[in-house]
């Protein structure tokens, strides 16, 4: 009765066939730390559990990760510290050399690419934001934002004009001549964001960008990110250890544990269909009305009833709750073409609001 999009795993098929929709594809990516890691992996046919690696004195920071990141989506990689999420995002940009696997970006395997080409891709197609901002202390805000253009050899006037526009975009106009130490944490990260956008990247990697900030500032920055994304429509890979942050921002979430990906899905998928207890632990306390849509809570249509009103299936419970309580009776749920596909009773909404039992 609950309609689900493809759930727990998404198997990437042929890389070139998917290039229209996929911005990046990871295939069997491994990063194993320790002596002779490559040989160990080869001997085990690239199949080894976390425990087997530990027994061999190795650490499987990233284990057999397969995923595809779609054009224009916000793809969140969520996991606790030590789960390998930061290592994974560094494998995607080859800041860390993976032990095995393939990372396709624009149809090319980044891992087989000569350094010269890699530098070109980083200079023009990738932007990264860091947890602790990683601003250069000896440069002003302007100098920092213009830095990625400077190393490309772009002349001063052009790069400073671009930088000024970006500084204005992130709301720091008037602070171009400040040094990083003169800014608050939130402001510093705004500089980090502006700097990562300077090269107009195709893929935007954000490594726990808001984790070092106070909760209130963090929220403000999340809103800021959504505002920028609505303007820019970048492909975003967002790393976080905060599940609330994931459900606020994500189109899709990948949950990592011990270096492996446990589940990939929309926030709603994860809440309604957690693949493991580990995922269920994350989803247990999240505000369900914000995540669940009418589709997830609707019941089959009872033919004897007619509905005075109806809502589209994608409407979040949070939005329809007030209406349905006023109605004191079930309302219809429609699909994209306006056809009734189910109904929602006030009781079902109460269950969601009061966190009473789970659907199914």
């Amino acid at each position, binding site marked *: 009765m609950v309609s689900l999009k493809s759930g727990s795993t998404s198997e990437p098929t042929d890389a070139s066939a998917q290039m229209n929709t996929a911005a990046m594809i990871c295939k069997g990516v491994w990063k194993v730390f320790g002596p002779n890691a490559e040989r160990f992996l080869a001997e085990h046919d690239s199949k080894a559990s976390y425990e087997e690696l530990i027994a061999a004195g190795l650490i499987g920071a990233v284990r057999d990760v397969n995923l595809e990141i779609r054009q224009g989506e916000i793809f969140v990689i969520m996991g606790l510290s030590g789960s390998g999420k930061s290592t994974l995002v*560094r494998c995607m*940009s080859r*800041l860390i050399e993976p032990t095995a696997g393939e990372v396709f970006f624009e149809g090319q395997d980044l891992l087989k690419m000569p350094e010269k080409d890699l*530098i*070109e891709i*980083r*200079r*023009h197609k*990738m*932007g*990264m934001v*860091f*947890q*602790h*901002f*990683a601003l*250069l*202390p*000896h*440069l*002003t805000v302007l100098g920092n934002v213009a*830095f*990625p253009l*400077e*190393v*490309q050899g772009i002349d001063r006037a052009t790069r400073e004009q671009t930088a000024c526009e970006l500084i204005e975009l992130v709301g720091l106009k008037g602070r171009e*001549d*400040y*040094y990083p*130490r*003169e800014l608050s944490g939130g402001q510093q990260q705004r500089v980090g964001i502006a700097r990562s956008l300077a*090269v107009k990247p195709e893929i935007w*990697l954000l490594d726990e960008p808001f984790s070092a900030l106070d909760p209130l500032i963090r929220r403000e920055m999340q809103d800021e990110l959504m505002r920028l994304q609505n303007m820019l429509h970048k492909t975003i890979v967002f790393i976080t250890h905060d599940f609330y942050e994931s459900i606020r921002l994500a189109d899709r979430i990948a949950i990592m544990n011990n270096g492996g990906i446990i589940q990939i899905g929309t926030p709603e998928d994860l809440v309604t269909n957690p693949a493991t207890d580990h995922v269920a632990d994350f989803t247990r306390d999240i505000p369900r009305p914000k995540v669940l849509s009418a589709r997830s809570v609707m019941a089959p249509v009872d033919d004897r009833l007619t509905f005075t009103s109806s809502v589209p299936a994608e409407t979040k419970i949070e939005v329809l709750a007030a209406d349905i309580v006023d109605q004191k009776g079930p309302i219809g749920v429609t699909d994209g073409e306006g056809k009734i596909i189910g109904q929602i009773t006030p009781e079902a909404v109460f269950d969601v609001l009061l966190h009473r039992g789970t659907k199914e």
Partner: protein
Amino acid sequence: MRATFSRAIAYAFGRRPELVFWLVVLAATVALFAADELLPWAVEYPSEWVIPLRFWVSDFMKWLINEADLGLFTFKQFTRSISWVFNWFLAASFGVLSEGVKIPLGGEALFHLPSLSWIALIAMLAIMAYSIRDWALSLLVGICFLYLAIFGQWGSAMVTLSSIVVAVPLGILFGLLLGILAYRHPWFERAITPLLDLMQTVPVFAYLVPVLFMFGFGPVAAMTATMIYSLPPMTRCTTMALQLVPTEIVEFGNMAGCSHRQLMWKVMVPSARPTLMVGVNQVIMLSLNMVIIASMIGAGGLGFDVLHALRRLAIGVGLEAGVAITVLAIALDRLSQAYAGKAPVRVKKKVSFVRRHPHLVAALAIIVATTVTGFLVPAVADYPESLTVTTSGFWEKLVTWINIHFFDTLDAIKSGLLLNVLIPFKRFLLSLPWLAVMGLLALAGVRLGGWRLSLGVAAMTAFVAVTGNWEKAMISTYLIGVSVVLASGIGMPIGIWAAGNDRVHRAVQVIIDTLQTLPAFVYLIPVVMLFRVGDFSAMIAVVAYSLVPIIRYTDHGIRQVPPSIIEAATAAGCTHRQILLKVQMPLALPEIMLGVNQTIMLGLSMLVITALVGTRDLGQEVYIALTKADTGRGIVAGVCVAMIAMVADRLISAWSTVRKKQLGLS
């Protein structure tokens, strides 16, 4: 009485079984004494067994200079060309600061461009200090240099300064490059680390000998020695600074698409600035220290004045030059430290050059103005000699007065210590069988750090014996031993006092920071004034020079004892005394021992310099080698000093590490 005594021994043994072990070792040593008749070679190293290493080194150096061919050019051509380049630099800085530059105008005519006027230099430095920090620093630097002018030290100080002006940038540059190389290639770091260790423990004189041999007597040789001497700390600082750059910064640099060169010079080196500046400050201070000592191979300047005065026992002149060195050291140290701590300041764009750089413009204006008026008014160009003040007469009188009134007291102290402590201890050490000493040190190595440490220590000790320097090394050991004990006896109470009282702490910090900036040479002057020459004078100089670390580490060690432990002890009803003796001291001891270790290192470097006041130890050996330009003798004796230093360092560090681990402090 007897019963209590034996019970006390049993108690001690019961708690410390290792004591039995050491007593057995001691007994074995005594037995070796007795075996003098049976095994004479184990007591005194036979002279026919000495390996003529020093002659091999000398022969090698001769071959290097006279015959070595590096393919494209000979070694001699190599040193000559270096010498030519350095000489050019030196001549330029000397011209600007001291002599002026003669510009040929064609034919016989010469235009004499004068050197920087004394007013211009003082004003320039004061403005620099102001723009870096504030008025206070500006005033300090100004007064320091004004002193040099007023007390007639300007000429010599400028000679010294012109060497530093060349040696420091070169030292920084080469140190930076070596450090970057060591950062990029771990094998290179592994290769140079022991070399840097050795370079930092070999006494300064030992540098002078081969440099003298290669470059001859003169300012270039002195400058080269100065530069080489300041390389190791800069190299280490660079490698460490680069390793300390946050990973994210490096990752950002890579993500921005930096090439290797861009990553190093645009991202890593600027980010590493604070740590790098520590290295720069060290280069400046070490260069000053060395350029003074290098007056022995022709550096000239203030160092030469001191050396000359020491040789003639002209106290007043020597003291004046000594104070000039001190003043120069303080000014350079404070300036470079202020510069190191300075963060970049925001400047408004789109204002004129003059508005953006007011200090630079002011300094340039003063330089031009004083140079022009200098042609008309000579007093502006050079400080008028008639206005110089000399205090040497006063100092002479003061010393004479002290000697008249306190000679008996001083002499009594001196001979009392000599007869009752120094000489007996010296005799004891000299009579120890060398094999026993080596065995004891090796055993200590096993107990503190295992077989590798033990073998290393034994090999280093053996080196001293095998190269035929045992007796002189024992004299060095005795001098350094007595000095360290004395320094600890003075320094520890001061450190404890400073740890307990914040005001004392601040005062002591200022004093020891200043003491640490003084070149070693300066310490010799008052000592010679009061005690003339000999072992006792040497000891006093060593104690004075090496006092700083023991104070610093004691203070720091006690202060870092966690407050919660002190609170617990207070709550348990401990008195202040009990807290100090039963809680703070045991916990601070590993740190204090590191201070003792540093004291030994500093003491050894000073000890070699005290050869000037007539000791008969390894330092004297190096000094003699220097006067005879006997490279092999100097280097081997220098390495022997380094061996003593490294044996002490390895053993003490090992103990401190073990103890810290036991106490859960590391």
